[in-house]
């Protein structure tokens, strides 16, 4: 091969790229790093961010225990990932939109949904997806990566309507980066330069498949280059760094300078402390102690340490927080357990107007319920 080619190839083809450590503001113990600047958040905001992360962790424990008691169905825990969830939602303005997966409970809560509404679907009721009108959250996305083109499209619509102050933030996992929809969504985002922020919650696992078997690319952030976009790696267990990076990405999405493109791919480097869902047993496929180094960087502990060091948090406040959380959780569980659903719901909202055939099916079902009683339908089929 010619020297010229040789030279060019080495530029063109260098498969190694970003190996940098993710952006941090707090070190692993919660001390502010030299040269790092903490984000512009009031003491009150910092405190309530802490409270929300703590609430998220307790919610997780409660939901898992409800599941064990058979009171809710399969639940996807978020412990270890609450820092990212809470911080990214703090970075949102109310008018911004959130596209969550099945795991972003805390992100939804912070952006306006009630705790109760998070529990309802787990109890089999749709009410939790009938999101209040002033809350800009989509129902959770379960088919992996399908939310990316949709989030892109909503941001595109906002831009078309001159509503670039309404950005869209879209969550997804490391596994999701393998799906075609990840690619198509980000490629569209690049071409149409839409006000959207794409947050990859790289928790190192897609159920049992580790990040290294998901893709041969060294980082997920570097995938942004395939779309002409900026990719940023952040320590997802550092709530302050997550907040700052997300806030900056949202700023750029809404108000880019001349040489900036609106969309950003954020790789939030995290770890899934627990099981994929309550139906999963991670001991089958990974070592328990793999979590240790990550737990050392725990977002809740780090923020606690930082707030204590800064004199913002003390034992009294902590106790108040714990009390509030307990009450909130208790109330939410009670409310969710009182939910109920009418079989008529099955037929509603399939179309704007119920077609005749659906009406007939509904009426037939109700006639049978009348005739045989509801118990006849709760026969266990298995």
């Amino acid at each position: 091969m010619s020297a010229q080619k040789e030279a060019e190839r080495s530029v063109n083809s260098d498969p190694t790229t970003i190996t940098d450590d993710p952006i941090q503001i707090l070190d692993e113990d919660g001390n502010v790093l030299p040269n790092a600047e903490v984000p512009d958040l009031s003491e009150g905001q910092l405190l309530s961010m802490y409270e929300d992360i703590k609430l998220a962790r307790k919610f997780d424990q409660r939901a898992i225990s409800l599941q064990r008691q058979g009171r809710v169905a399969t639940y996807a825990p978020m412990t270890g990932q609450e820092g990212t969830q809470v911080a990214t939602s703090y970075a949102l303005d109310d008018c911004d939109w959130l596209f969550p997966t099945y795991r972003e409970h805390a992100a939804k809560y912070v952006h306006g949904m009630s705790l109760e509404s998070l529990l309802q679907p787990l109890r089999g009721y749709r009410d939790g997806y009938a999101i209040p009108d002033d809350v800009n959250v989509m129902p959770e996305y379960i088919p992996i990566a399908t939310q990316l083109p949709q989030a892109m499209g909503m941001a595109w619509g906002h831009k078309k309507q001159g509503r670039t102050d309404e950005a869209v933030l879209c969550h997804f996992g490391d596994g999701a980066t393998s799906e075609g929809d990840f690619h198509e969504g980000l490629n569209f985002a690049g071409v149409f330069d839409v006000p959207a922020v794409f947050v990859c919650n790289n928790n190192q696992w897609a159920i049992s498949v580790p990040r290294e078997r998901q893709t041969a690319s060294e980082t997920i952030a570097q995938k942004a280059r395939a779309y002409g976009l900026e990719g940023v790696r952040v320590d997802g267990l550092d709530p302050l760094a997550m907040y700052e990076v997300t806030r900056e990405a949202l700023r750029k999405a809404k108000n880019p300078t001349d040489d900036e493109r609106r969309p950003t791919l954020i790789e939030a480097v995290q770890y899934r402390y627990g099981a994929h869902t309550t139906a999963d047993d991670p001991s089958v496929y990974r070592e328990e102690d793999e979590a240790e180094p990550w737990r050392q960087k725990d977002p809740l502990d780090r923020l606690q340490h930082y707030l204590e060091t800064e004199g913002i948090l003390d034992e009294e406040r902590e106790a108040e927080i714990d009390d509030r959380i307990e009450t909130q959780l208790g109330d939410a569980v009670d409310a969710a357990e009182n939910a109920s659903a009418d079989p008529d719901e099955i037929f509603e909202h399939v179309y704007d107007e119920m077609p005749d055939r659906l009406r007939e099916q509904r009426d037939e079902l109700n006639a049978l319920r009348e005739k045989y009683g509801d118990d006849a339908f709760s026969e266990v089929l298995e």
Partner: protein
Amino acid sequence: MSSAATPSTESSTDNLSLVEAVRDGLYTEMSTDERVVVLGEDVGKNGGVFRATDGLYEEFGAGRVVDTPLAESGIVGSAIGLSLSGMRPVAEMQFMGFIYPAFDQIVSHASRLRSRSKGKYSVPMVIRAPYGGGIRAPEHHSESKEAFFAHEPGLKVVCPSTPYDAKGLLIASIRDPDPVIFLEPKLIYRAFREDVPMESYEVPLADAAIRREGSDVTVYTWGAMTRPSLIAADNVAEEYGVDVEVVDLRTLSPLDVETIVDSFQKTGRAVIVHEAPKTAGLGAEVATTIQENAVLYQEAPIERVAGFDTPMPLHALEDYYLPQAVRIQDQILETADF
């Protein structure tokens, strides 16, 4: 419920082919509703590979007539997002055979966002796709798989067979609060012209059309197969005195059960014609619906004249694959004589 959709008697009409009527429907809606945007592959400067969006780019600009990257899931997924943002997207799939990469977005999301959110979110949007065979197209360009979409709750499926209906059904589809799969019979895109009102009008997404009245046998069909069905009906009337009613379903989901059953109660005999493969095609649903509702009127087996259970052959043989008048005719006579 049924209405023989005859062109309105308005003074200002244009004499349009079916594809021109599609274009006119887009033009009309885009002129009056700025939420309407058209997106797809080559729909912009190029005006669509069938010219269905001809001139719209010049008229409405690149912001409303958008050439997208070559990615159907991206097109449909972003159209869902556009719709959620308050726009009224009309997405073009270049051929129905290329809708499959978008299948997940259609069946997992477009169809369900309303029910998933108990009515909070909805995705009014139209996915247009030219469908069907008979134009000597390469492989994968002749798909007719309306049954896939009719089986998915939450979607509407529409298929015009005349220029007048093409415009009116398209406008109704764009205005419809639910996602609509709008299948265009490309075989007859330019086969004939019809006077089409210049102004805006809707053909409701609820009604089948009786294209020919008759008392002996009902032929149920839609889209491109309407014409050979009508030819066959004329032939058997002329040659054998068999009086055939031809029902053009127009909206394939939800079905206009009333018109379907009424006609059968009159004739007691039915032939269903479609170009999709026979097995598990929409013809099966029509036949089953008929006998569920009117078995006591039935005087002969309900038969299907359909595409074979094979992929569409290359074009040297496609005339054997598609239901031709001769096949329809033969079946009508057999059904009439049963």
